[in-house]
C-alpha cells in the first residue's frame, strides 16, 4: 500500500505527528508527549472514522500543506483556519474528501495556535513505546515535518461513526487556569501565593510544547535554593528562580528541581494549547477544602 502516504508541501512553523502520547514511562525519563489540544485531536479522528489513538498532525500558528497520494478523507480541527483543496475552499471542522494527488492546505490560524489534521487511517509512522507522538524534549518519535518529507498513512478504519456538529471556537481572550495548590506551595510566601491568583500574567513568546511560560510579577519565595530532583506532573506550575510560573505541557521533563506551587488538572489544559503569546492568563485556585467566603469591604 505504498500509495497510502502524504508528501509535505509546506511544513509550516512547526508541525508534528501526535497521538495520545506514551504515558507510563516517566520512571525511565520519557515524557508523555501527545496532542496538546487532546479534544481537537480526538474530534479530528472521529470526523474521519479513526479511533482516538490514531496519529494526526499538530500545526503551530501557520498551518501546513500536504499532497495525498491516494484519495483520502481529511478533517481539520483545533485552531480555526482556512482550509483549501488544490486552492478551492473546503470546510474546517468537517470531513473533506481529498482526491489523489491533490494538495490539502490548512492555512494560518485565524485565532488560536494549533490545528489538528486527521487523515482516514491515521499517520502510520513507526511506534516508539506504543506511540507515534513526536516528543520535542527528548527527540523520541518522528522529527517535525520538513518540506518534501513523506509520511505513510494507515488503512482506513471505515466510515465515521458519528457526524459531530463542530462549533467554531472563538478566540481565547483570556486563558483561565484552575489549579490545586501544592505540592511545594509552602516554598512561597503568602504574598507569593496571592500574587499568583491576583497578578496580571500573560503568555510568553518563549512558550513551546514543553511548557507555557508566563510574563508577570515574580512570585515571592519563602525558601531559597533548589529541591532535590522530584517527579513532575503534567500541568505542574513550576517556578524557576526568576519567579515566573511555567505550566508544564506534554513534552515536560519527568523530573525537576524547582518547586511546583500548584497543578492544573489535565481536563483544563486544552485551552493552553491555543493561547498565543500576549494572551492574559488568570490562575484560579481550586479548593481542596471548602473555600472561605471572601469578605466584603
Amino acid at each position, binding site marked *: 500500500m505504498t500509495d497510502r502516504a502524504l508528501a509535505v508541501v509546506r511544513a509550516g512553523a512547526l508541525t508534528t505527528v501526535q497521538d495520545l502520547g506514551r*504515558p*507510563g*514511562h*516517566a*520512571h*525511565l*525519563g*520519557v515524557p508523555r508527549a501527545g496532542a496538546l489540544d487532546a479534544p481537537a485531536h480526538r474530534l479530528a479522528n472521529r470526523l474521519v472514522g479513526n479511533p482516538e489513538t490514531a496519529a494526526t498532525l499538530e500545526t503551530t500558528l501557520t498551518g501546513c500543506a500536504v499532497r495525498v497520494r491516494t484519495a483520502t478523507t481529511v478533517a481539520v480541527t483545533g485552531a480555526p483556519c482556512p482550509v483549501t483543496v488544490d486552492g478551492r475552499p473546503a470546510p474546517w471542522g468537517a470531513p473533506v474528501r481529498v482526491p489523489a494527488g491533490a494538495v490539502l492546505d490548512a492555512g494560518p490560524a485565524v485565532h488560536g495556535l494549533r490545528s489538528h489534521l486527521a487523515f482516514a487511517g491515521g499517520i502510520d509512522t513507526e511506534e*516508539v*513505546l506504543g506511540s507515534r507522538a513526536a516528543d520535542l524534549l*527528548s*527527540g*523520541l518519535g518522528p522529527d517535525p515535518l520538513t518540506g518534501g518529507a513523506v509520511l505513510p498513512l494507515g488503512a482506513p478504519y471505515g466510515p465515521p461513526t458519528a457526524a459531530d456538529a463542530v462549533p467554531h471556537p472563538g478566540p481565547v481572550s483570556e486563558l483561565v487556569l484552575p489549579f*490545586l495548590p*501544592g*505540592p511545594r506551595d509552602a516554598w512561597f510566601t503568602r504574598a507569593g501565593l496571592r500574587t499568583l491568583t491576583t497578578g496580571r500574567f500573560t503568555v510568553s513568546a518563549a512558550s513551546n510544547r514543553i511548557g507555557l511560560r508566563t510574563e508577570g510579577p515574580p512570585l515571592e519565595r519563602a525558601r531559597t535554593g533548589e529541591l*532535590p*530532583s*522530584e*517527579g*513532575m*506532573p503534567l*500541568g505542574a506550575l513550576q517556578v524557576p528562580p526568576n519567579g515566573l510560573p511555567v505550566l508544564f505541557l506534554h513534552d515536560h*521533563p*519527568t*523530573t*525537576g528541581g524547582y518547586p*511546583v506551587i500548584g*497543578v*492544573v*488538572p489535565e481536563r483544563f489544559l486544552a485551552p493552553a494549547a491555543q493561547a498565543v503569546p500576549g494572551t492574559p492568563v488568570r490562575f484560579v485556585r481550586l479548593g*481542596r477544602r471548602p473555600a472561605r467566603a471572601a469578605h466584603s469591604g
Partner: protein
Amino acid sequence: MRPLPVGEHGLLIELDSAEEVGALHAELLRRAADGTLPPVGEIVPAARTVFLDGLADPRGLIAELATWDVPPRPADDRPAVEIPVRYDGPDLADVAALWDTTPDEVVRRHSGTTFHVAFCGFAPGFGYLTGLPEPLHVPRRDTPRTKVPVGSVALAGPYTGVYPRSSPGGWQLIGTTDAVLWDARREPAALLTPGTRVRFVPLETAR
C-alpha cells in the same frame, strides 16, 4: 513518610533518605505486581521522593500508606549490569584534583564501586547512579558544555551518570562507553532502570 497531594490524581511521597526511597519504590512495585496497589499510571522515584500519578483516589492511598510496614529494599540477586569504560574524559584530572588523588586512583575507586540506579530523568535512559561516598561528591562544571558526547560517563553531586545521547550538560566527564543506554526497540528500552545495580569496568587506554 510524608505524602503530599499533587493535583487531582497525584501523590508525592517524601522520604528521609535515598535508602527509604529505594525501599518504598521496591514495595510499590511489589504491590503493583501482586495487584494489591490501586491502579496507578506512573511510579517515579527520585532523590528523596516517589511520585505516583494517575490515581483514582490519592487520599485513600494516603490513609492506606500509613498502615504499611515497608521492609528495607530486598537484596538484588540479579548480576550487576557491567558498563565497559575508557577512562579518558576531559575532566578526569579535575576530578582527581577534587578527590585529592591521581587519575589512576579515580579509575580504581570509580570502577571499584557498585552503584545503584536511584532514579531516571533528564533524558530517556539517563540514570542517576548512587554509590560514591560523600567525600567523593563533586560539583557540576561552572560552565555547562553545550555538547556532551553520547556515552560520556560523568559525575555531579552524589551521582554518576552516562549520557544516553549527545546533549548539553554540566557534569564532570571522566570517561566514555560504547554501551547502548537507550534503544527503543529493546525491552526494556533503558539499560539502566531504577533499582538496577551497576559496575563500571575499565578498558585499557593509553591516556
